[in-house]
């Protein structure tokens, strides 16, 4: 999973990156436009000012005369606190104003058209507007240039202000875009998460194909996933078939051997021979039982990782399991007595049945004939307790815990077929459910009590 990171994060980052780019771009454009607009405003005012001055140009007794109108400068003062310079000249002759203003000297005498220029004066950048007007001086028309210049501080401050506003808006836009991106990423990934959830919700053996409406982009994933599950299902099925086949192939001859041995045992006269036949049968039983419990244990471990819990009425489950073992108990004239209150819990019924079966099987196995095995279900202090009491020889010496360890058998098990896995299976099942297995010897040789403890839901 490392290295490629989360798609959600990548998508968010990508969209955020785009948003950042757009934000910067929009900020840059707005700043540029703001500056342009501010400059155009200044140009317009300069043009108006210079035109107002030019309109006062007149000829008086052969001399060019003019009058600076008050409004020509007051309008400049109205837009900003910028320094104002001006120059009125005809050719090289300065009529009035700032002589050293860097006006472009070769101006086209196009009447009425305002020419703009940018320059530097008095240590500051200035914007100049110049208009040329022909004035009749004597008999000759003389071109008179009127220039009004203004520093650009107002332009700069307006565009800085707007740029700041634009920056603020860009940041806001960016933040909104990022949160929207995160939302969009989450929304687009929702079907993916839903598929993941649907897959993870499934039980360990549920390999049916996923049938969900999925976006087109996820269709290949769904197809591959379904194909994978199909293959997995097939391979599990073939493995299961193989195991079944193998078990059949091994167990059926074993059953034959056992049956024949039992028949031989019946007809055998010699005690030595009988003993050998008994040992043979016992060996067959042990091997079959061990194989069975090993497989059961594997199943328990496999299913414990991903419990398929469903609400189960434990008292019913106990009764069913007990009923299944009744013939076995009857063989020894052992009575199975059930005393159960209705208790419900969220458990894996297959595993719980297995755990209880193992405990009961043990109890029946170690009980002397014509005794009673009592099974009770109680619910108290947030715990459901399924107790199995026998009237057997008890657990014997040694810590009870050891009995639940794999392949450990008690001290009192001589002559009884067992693999030592039964209690381990029960313990594992209970622990997978958040419960525990309690084992205790009841008062002096009065049997064993094995209790399956589950947290009540």
């Amino acid at each position, binding site marked *: 999973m490392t290295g490629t990171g989360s798609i959600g994060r990548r998508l968010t980052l990508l969209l955020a990156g785009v948003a950042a780019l757009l934000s910067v771009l929009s900020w840059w454009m707005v700043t540029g436009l703001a500056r342009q607009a501010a400059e155009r405003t200044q140009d317009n005012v300069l043009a108006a000012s210079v035109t107002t001055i030019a309109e006062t140009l007149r000829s008086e007794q052969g001399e060019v005369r003019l009058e600076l109108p008050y409004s020509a400068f007051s309008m400049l003062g109205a837009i900003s606190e910028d320094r104002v310079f001006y120059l009125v000249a005809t050719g090289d002759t300065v009529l009035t104003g700032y002589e050293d203003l860097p006006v472009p000297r070769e101006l086209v005498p196009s009447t009425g058209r305002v020419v703009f220029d940018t320059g530097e004066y008095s240590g500051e950048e200035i914007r100049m507007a110049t208009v040329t007007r022909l004035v009749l001086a004597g008999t000759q028309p003389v071109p008179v240039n009127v220039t009004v210049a203004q520093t650009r501080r107002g332009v700069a401050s307006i565009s800085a202000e707007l740029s700041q506003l634009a920056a603020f808006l860009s940041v806001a836009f960016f933040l909104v875009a990022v949160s929207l991106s995160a939302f969009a990423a989450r929304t687009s990934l929702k079907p993916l998460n839903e598929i993941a959830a649907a897959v993870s919700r499934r039980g360990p053996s549920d390999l049916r194909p996923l049938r969900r409406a999925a976006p087109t982009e996820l269709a290949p994933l769904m197809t591959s996933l379904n194909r994978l599950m199909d293959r997995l299902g097939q391979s599990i099925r073939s493995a299961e078939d193989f*195991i*079944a*086949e193998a*078990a*059949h*192939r*091994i*167990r*059926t*001859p*074993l*059953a*034959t*051997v*056992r*049956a*024949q041995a*039992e*028949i031989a*045992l*019946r007809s055998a006269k010699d005690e030595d021979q009988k003993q050998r036949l*008994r040992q043979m*049968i*016992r060996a*067959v*039983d042990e091997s*079959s039982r061990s*194989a*069975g419990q090993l*497989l*059961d244990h594997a*199943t328990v471990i496999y299913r414990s990782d991903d419990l398929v819990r469903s609400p189960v009425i434990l008292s019913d489950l106990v009764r069913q399991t007990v009923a*299944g073992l*009744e*013939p*076995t108990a*009857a*063989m*020894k*004239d052992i009575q199975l007595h059930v005393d159960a209150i209705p208790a419900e819990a969220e458990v894996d019924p*297959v*595993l719980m*049945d*297995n755990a209880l079966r193992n405990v009961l099987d043990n109890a029946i196995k170690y009980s002397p*004939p*014509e005794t009673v095995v009592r099974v009770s279900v109680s619910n108290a202090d947030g715990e459901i307790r399924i107790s199995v009491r026998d009237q057997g020889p008890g657990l014997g010496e040694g810590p009870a815990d050891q009995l639940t360890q794999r392949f450990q058998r008690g001290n009192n098990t001589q*002559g009884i*077929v067992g693999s030592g896995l039964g209690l381990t299976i029960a313990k594992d099942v209970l622990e997978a459910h958040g419960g525990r297995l309690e084992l205790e010897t009841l008062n002096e040789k009065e049997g064993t009590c094995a209790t399956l403890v589950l947290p009540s839901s």
Partner: protein
Amino acid sequence: MRYLLVEDNTELAEAVVNRLALDGHAVDHAASLSEAEDCLAVAQYDLILLDVMLPDGDGRDFLARKRAHIETPVIVLTARSQVSDRVGALDQGADDYITKPFDFSELEARCRAVLRRRGGESRNEIRLGSAVFDPLSGTLRNGDESIDLRNREIRLLEVFARHKGQILSKSQLMDRLFSYDAEVTENAIEVYVGRLRRRIDGMGVRIETVRGLGYRMETGEA
């Protein structure tokens, strides 16, 4: 009782057939599903013992198919022992299952348990003097009196009842009563026979000791 055993392993089938015959059951053997179909077509059975892995198919599929129109109880013989397989077998309509290899005593016990649960007709009742004995339900009635019997007493009585007049050795009886590895001696048989004698006292039947050979049940009619 008439049993149908569906099992492809001939040796095992033979052993089972022989064993069940000892209890007086008639057992037909089918080595495949198609043979089983044939048997079911011509005869009525009280119980079917069905192996799951057969040369021409899966016994469980067969079971699922047949379940719709055959009410005969079925015990599945399975080589699989995994929890899920066991549960599966029951879900598919089996009444019980038994994993291979199995103890004959257990097989018998399960057969009886299934038959009892299915509440089979009382046509297997055996008259014992003035009393009527139903080995399946384990009831022994003498007129209005009903006598309580323990499981092993029922088993023992059944053996005697099915072999009236025959001498049965202690070892024969032990085979029928106990699992092969039960830690019992022939004394135990004496104890059970003693108990049984007290139960059937006054019914016109008795169990005689044939010195050196075993026991024999004598009834008035015989």
